[in-house]
C-alpha cells in the first residue's frame, strides 16, 4: 500500500430501457418458440430477418410475416483469434453472416462443431437451439449454427447478400 497512486478507476455506466418495437418483438417471440420469423416487403417482396418493421429500399411497412427455414448459407465469415475482455467462447471461433433459406438479409451467427480453418463461403448450416425448456426471448436461444451434409451453395446464389 506504500506505492504511489498512478491510476484511478473511472467506470462509466448508462442504464437504458430498450424497446424492441413491434417487428422485433414478433421476431423474439418466434425465437422463444424455436423458429425464425421474418417479414416480407409488399413492394419488392424481399424477406427481412430479423425484421425492423419496414423495407429500407421501398420505405413501406413490412406487414406479411414469414416463417424461415432452420437452415441457411454462410455468406461470409470471420475467424476470431484475438482474446478480449468478456469473451465467452474459446478462440479460435467462427463468426459468420448467415442467410437463412427464404430470407433476403443475412445476420450474424456463431459456427461450431467445425474446426475454424474449415469454414467456407457458401457452406450450408443449420441452427442448433437450446433445450425447449430453456428457450426465451433472446438470441441466446440459438446456441450456434453447425454444418449440414449438403453441397456448398454456388457463389451466385448469395453474392447479392455480401
Amino acid at each position, binding site marked *: 500500500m506504500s506505492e504511489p*497512486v498512478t491510476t484511478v478507476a473511472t467506470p462509466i455506466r448508462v442504464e437504458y430501457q430498450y424497446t*424492441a418495437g413491434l417487428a422485433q418483438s414478433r421476431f423474439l417471440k418466434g425465437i422463444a418458440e424455436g423458429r425464425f420469423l421474418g417479414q416480407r416487403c409488399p413492394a419488392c417482396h424481399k424477406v427481412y430477418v430479423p425484421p425492423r418493421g419496414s423495407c429500407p429500399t421501398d420505405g413501406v411497412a413490412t406487414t406479411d410475416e414469414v416463417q424461415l427455414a432452420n437452415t441457411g448459407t454462410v455468406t461470409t465469415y470471420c475467424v476470431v483469434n484475438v482474446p478480449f475482455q468478456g469473451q465467452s467462447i474459446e478462440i479460435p471461433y467462427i463468426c459468420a453472416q448467415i442467410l437463412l433459406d427464404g430470407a433476403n438479409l443475412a445476420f450474424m451467427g456463431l459456427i461450431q462443431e467445425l474446426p475454424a480453418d474449415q469454414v467456407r463461403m457458401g457452406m450450408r448450416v443449420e441452427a442448433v437451439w437450446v433445450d425447449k425448456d430453456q428457450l426465451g426471448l433472446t438470441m441466446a436461444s440459438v446456441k450456434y449454427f453447425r454444418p449440414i451434409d449438403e453441397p456448398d451453395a454456388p457463389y451466385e446464389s448469395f453474392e447479392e447478400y455480401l
Partner: protein
Amino acid sequence: MADSDVLRAPHVLEYPYSRSVGPVIGAFLTGLRDGRILGARGDEGAVIVPPTEYDPVSGRDVGDLVEVGPGGVVTTWAWAPTPRADQPLDKPCAWALVLLDGAATAMLHVVDAGSPEAMRSGMRVTPRFRPATERQGHIRDIECFVPERGAS
C-alpha cells in the same frame, strides 16, 4: 397488434475505464489514501486544492505539495434531497464547495448535515475519512464532510 405486445428490457452499457492520474493528482490521491489532503503551491504562493499540474493563471508548473485542512469552511452549497445511485452518500445531503484551511481554492464534496436547515455558507466542516484499510487512493477516500463539532 396492441402496444402491450411490444417487448421492453433493461439494457446496461458499462465501460470499465481506468485513468492515469499523473504525478500531481497522483500525489493528491496518495495523500487521501494516507488520510491527508494535499494542495499545490501556485506562482503567487496560493495553495490550489485539489492540486492542478499547472498554475491556472500563469500556466507554469506548480511547486511543492503542502498539506491543508483537514477542516474548512463551506463557501456555497446545494441540497440534494434524492441522491442518485453512485453518489457518495445514499441519503439526502449537501453538495458543497469547501475552502480548506490553508487553501486558496475550494473543493467539491458532500456534507452530511442531516437537513438543509443545518447548512449555511460559512459553516465549519471537517472530513470524515474511510477507515485506512478501505482507502484506495480515490476522492471517495473522504466519505463526506461533516459539521465541525463545537463550531458555530
